[in-house]
């Protein structure tokens, strides 16, 4: 048996997470982390979700990504601009023409309809539509100077999720689970909590594994009902019958395997059926919010209609992180932050749905000691313009703001990140990041860094290339925000 690729115990550990293309063992860690040398000839490799120790000591061991797709308006939330107040109503279009998606709707400079105040010990500026987060600002590092490469949602979302404007590349969560595996083999490594009201822009592409094995793609958990597709039988049958049938499958498979030595894929098949049964229990348990106190429900706003849905997802996120899930990503339906019109109302509504749950999550993570090794990342894919976007009747009262790729606001909190810190700055109008600019790739590199991974050394060989999340362009870890 010395040539057998693994011993049985190892095999079942591996298989617990799902075995990938079993054929030949390889020093997986070497392949993932090797430095930049000539690619080795491709071998049939196996991939699994066993937890792996990163190259450097990680500051954070799990990530909760609060993806605010649509483009939260920087100058209405976190980046007050007196020049907008001073120049309100002045023409500005010609100066930024190449950066406006809908020139025919472009209006004049528009001041923020919201009031800003300083909060916390740090005195961070936050507008009055985020009253709950305002109380948590000393936990976050705010980045005012992010920017991206495309002003349209779809490419910009692909960019922030996968490092490229195009479909087909692995997303952040896929890279992280590829690099780190996961702690709990009975739950998916990368869980997506999307909004029951609908998918975000780019749909399921947001959590694709691209050219990485499908093992690393995000698994959608629905917040209500059966959390995973096909988790429970979709037909009526006495439990005893189901058990009997599963037992038959298992016995038939063991007979089949008995006659086929040296076929780890058959062991993997049997193990995957056992995992399926365990997952049914583990996933159901993780999603059972009745185990939480009324006070906790209240903290996340689950007791109120406006915040109930997002609050549930935030609380589930905490429960998943507690159980060792590596990467949890939260979505909101369609584009609530895409405030092309009536920004005074629409942006306020977006905040009302999310502010309390997000603040509750930060508070709860902290009080349970989870924030020290959990990284919470908040942000969207683009920012917005300093000029008004006018509706057909040109009524300024109904104005919104159009897309902007030159300035994005985002924040991180928790594992390894400073609290109450503001990084970078935009110009006087909030149109473009000018100081300490942070490109999307820098943001990716920073996130990986906090997890103990180096963006240039985490790669996957394909088509003769060492593919990386940050691509070939240089990326920089935003060291200033590190604790």
């Amino acid at each position, binding site marked *: 048996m010395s040539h057998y690729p693994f011993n049985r115990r190892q095999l079942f550990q591996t298989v617990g997470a799902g075995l990938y293309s079993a054929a030949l063992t390889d020093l997986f860690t070497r392949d993932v982390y090797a430095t930049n040398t000539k690619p080795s000839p491709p071998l049939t490799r196996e991939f699994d979700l066993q937890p792996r120790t990163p190259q450097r000591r990680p500051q954070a061991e799990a990530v909760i990504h609060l993806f605010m797709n649509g483009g939260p308006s920087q100058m209405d939330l976190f980046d007050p601009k007196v020049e907008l107040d001073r120049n309100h109503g002045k023409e500005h279009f010609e100066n930024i023409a190449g950066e406006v998606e809908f020139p025919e709707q472009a209006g004049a400079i528009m001041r923020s309809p919201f009031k800003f105040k300083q909060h916390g010990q740090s005195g961070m500026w936050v507008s009055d539509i985020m009253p709950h987060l305002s109380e948590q600002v000393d936990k976050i590092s705010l980045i005012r100077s992010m920017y991206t490469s495309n002003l349209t949602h779809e490419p910009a979302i692909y960019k922030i999720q996968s490092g490229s404007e195009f479909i087909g590349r692995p997303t952040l969560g896929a890279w992280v689970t590829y690099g780190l595996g996961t702690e709990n083999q009975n739950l998916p490594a990368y869980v997506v909590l999307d909004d029951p009201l609908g998918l975000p822009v780019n749909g399921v592409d947001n959590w694709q594994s691209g050219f990485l094995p499908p093992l690393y793609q995000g698994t959608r958990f629905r917040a209500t009902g059966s959390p995973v597709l096909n988790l429970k039988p979709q037909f009526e049958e006495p439990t005893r019958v189901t058990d009997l049938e599963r037992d038959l499958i298992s016995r038939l498979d063991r007979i089949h395997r008995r006659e086929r030595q*040296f076929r780890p894929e058959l062991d993997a098949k049997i193990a995957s059926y056992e*995992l399926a049964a365990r997952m049914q229990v583990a996933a159901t348990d993780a999603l059972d919010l009745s185990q939480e106190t009324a006070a906790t429900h209240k903290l996340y706003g689950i007791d109120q209609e406006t915040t109930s849905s997002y609050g549930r997802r935030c609380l589930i996120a905490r429960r998943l992180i507690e159980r060792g899930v590596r990467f949890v990503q939260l979505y909101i339906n369609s584009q609530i932050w895409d405030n092309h019109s009536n920004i005074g109302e629409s942006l306020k509504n977006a905040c009302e749905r999310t502010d309390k749950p997000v603040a509750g999550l930060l508070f709860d993570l902290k009080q349970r000691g989870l924030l020290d090794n959990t990284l919470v990342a908040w942000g969207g894919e683009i920012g917005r313009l300093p000029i008004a976007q006018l509706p057909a009747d040109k009524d300024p009262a109904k104005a919104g703001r159009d897309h902007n790729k030159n300035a994005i606001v985002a924040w991180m909190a928790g594992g390894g990140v400073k609290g109450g810190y503001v990084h970078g700055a935009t110009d006087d109008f909030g149109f473009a990041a000018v100081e300490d600019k942070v490109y999307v790739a820098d943001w990716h590199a920073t996130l990986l860094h906090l997890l103990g991974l180096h963006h240039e050394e985490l790669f996957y060989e394909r088509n003769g290339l060492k593919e990386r999340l940050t691509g070939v362009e240089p990326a920089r870890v935003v060291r200033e925000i590190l604790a």
Partner: protein
Amino acid sequence: MISRTSPYRTHTGRYSAVTYCRLLVFTALTAYVFFLYENRGVADTSEPPFFETTIQPIFSKHCTDCHGPEVQEGGLDLSSAKGLLQGSESGPTFRAGNAEQSTLFGLIQRGDMPPAEEEQLSEAEIEAIRIWIESGAPFQDAKLGDSGPTQHDVIPILLLRCVVCHGGRSQEAGLDLRTRESLLRGGKSGPAVVSGDPQKSLLIQRIHKQEMPPRRALVRVSVKPMEATELTVLEQWIAQGLPKSDLQPDIANQVADPLVSNEDRRFWSFQSPVAAPLPEVPLETISTSIDSFILRSLRNVQLHFSPPATRSVLVRRLSFNLTGLPPTPSEVEQFLADPTPDAYEKLVDRLLASPRHGERWATHWLDVAGYADSEGSQNEDRVRPHMWRYRDYVIRALNQDKPYDRFLHEQLAGDELTEYENVETIDDAIYDNLVATGFLRTAPDRTFAAITAFVPDRLEVIADEMQIFGSAILGLTIHCARCHTHKFDPIPQRDYYRLTAIFKDGFDEHDWLKSQGPRTLNFVTTSERTAWQANKEQVEQEAAVVQEKITAEENEEKKKQLETELQAINQRHQPEPRIRALWSRGVPSPTYVLLRGDYKNAGRLVGPGVPSVLTDGKTPFIFAPPWQGAQKTGRRLALAKWLTEPSNPLTARVMANRIWKHHFGRGLVTSLDNFGTTGASPSHPELIDWLAVEFVRRQWSMKSLHRMLVTSTTYRQSSTITEELAATDLEGTLLSRMPLRRMEGEVLRDALLQISNRLQHIPYGPADSITEMEGGLITTEPRQGGWRRSVFALHRRTKMPTILENFDYPQMGPNCLDRRASVVAPQALHLLNNALVSEWADSFAMRVASEVGENPAKQIRRAYQIALGRLPREEEQQIGLSLYDDCKKQWLESGVTDAPQRAFKNVCHALMNSAAFLYID
């Protein structure tokens, strides 16, 4: 622009670091030119070191072996001032006055050049270079500094910012800005430029006033405003009197290629395949020639072929392999009962002749072509309503055994094969030619909307198509040379752009057909068009009659009835049949190498050509309009013909290897997409070459190749791994046995449908739409109480049927060369718990009952025959029966009236979940 951290610097590849390209006049360089002017006076008085006397000797000593006139790695020639000034692949090599920002100096200073194993420059030499650059980089031949911009620095800018409205397709105000001559000719308002006077030039005035390009129209035509540095170049060119360069496009010519050497061409896969003599092995042990190669390798390690598989294993293996479906019980019976010596060969012929064969093998080709029925990229993932015709074309071609060379000609240049615009009748052949070019229209594409159809968006589509072409047909990672010379293979960046020049008449980023409507042609067969037309007229006629009645009718109720009737008639309208195609548009823009792949950074002008390493480097790429009066360049046709010359090093090898892979589970070269230097070495080098030659000798017949491979002794081996094989050939590299394979998603779904009698064989036509159930589960729409094969399901990128997704349907990004087989819990959950799978199990159980009645022992035997092509073993039969009894008891207790049927369904459902069903020996 020069000092940006080089992505190349850390690599050790032979084409690293410095690169080629003609002098380019953008930001930094503009500054550099001005600097030269300013410093000329200084140079005269203070006698600084001249290049010719001080620097050239250093370069000649250390650099010119690799960067000289004969060998120009990275496109750099340091043997003369002219060569230095021409720059490298990354652009200018130095910036006068600023050593720190000079690429060349940086590389030398950091010790990256010369390469570590070569003699290094002394500190004094490095210092001399630094001083020379810092003092303004003076040349003795002062003229050299004067090289200002020419029309080739200006044309790329005008292409980018202006020609969409002032070019070949549209000449607003009568103005064409594509050439120096047309600029001088001007438009309705007079000449666009006044030589020597930028301020008087209309072109410059309009741009300065920001009237051009018009701000409010920018998005509509997908153009960005001209950048200040670009305007500077324009002004400078005009100020200097519109200097004209007589530079010709860089193409292969009689001179030996300085970028690719004959040494490079010596790599095994870059040489034409030659068939080695067959190895001598005992003839009685083999069935076909390929066996002799396999057997020789086995004997080298004291192995022999595994014993042959049993007949029932063989028929199942072969049926799945050639048709993607399990054998029917009668097919199995017929084969097992056939006593003739050529029973197996007859089975092979039957399966190859089955229409199911093309449906199965089309999936393999559609994977490499990156087939999808939708655009991808944008959120709505817009459906491509005409793409299915290409899928049908592939199925038809494979069923007809269309020779692979012809198959490629049609897909790469179908529009250049025969006239289609001025013919009376469009027959099947002409139609197929056009539909086949759908191969070049598969990449994810967001350019159907103006906001996502800017030049960089278009270049991404082109890059994806080049990647598909390179990986699918050439087996080369040619896309790696888009931004810089290939790091490991001898593919200069120049060759990537020469290749894009071949496709330029179809993929022109400056003359772009947006995806969807503009990409379609209406040249469907005359019979299809006539039928559509007739239906249209018929419907219109009937509608008119009813409309008249409605107008005349006064009774409201009757009017309503008539309106319903009218609606029903109008629903019979069919969408106009159109073909998603690629066709030559006749007048391609010039092709410039894009430095570092940056669309705003045009370098050397190149012409069409194929990768130099696959030729002798001296043969020009010859092409001509395919017929008299054709408004086509014939470039792609010439490419297709070059690809299918028997001497082409890669085409036959790559395809033969792919076919091999699908039969034997692994390629002779395991990196199906990469036959380059970083690809896997062939496990049987002589066999891959013999196979390639044989493929061509058999007139590129794929069915003939299939027949040879599946009738081999190698293919007929058992898949059992003994202790001995595990010790010597655990991976199966030597083909000492056949592999064990899990069904692919499509095969699994089709097989489940077939055994349940729910598979509808309705071939071809528009794709079956999909339904999204609550929770996001996606299934395909049933047809006539059943479902069609998976190949006919709508392949919408973001909404693939869940069962296919769960079983590793790959994302087409942009294509898939090799599918993986994962084993994960969601697969188990799907087969165990999914409602449709359960419904199919019910159908399976009912089918069995209708065939053999209600006796459970008989039923189990029959179920095994249908699902596994064999009878259950005694043990299997026993535990099956005992489960049946236990389940029946439980069902009875639950109070249902059909407990026996339900219990047997449990047996069937378990069988559908079993490894014996899911894996093929």
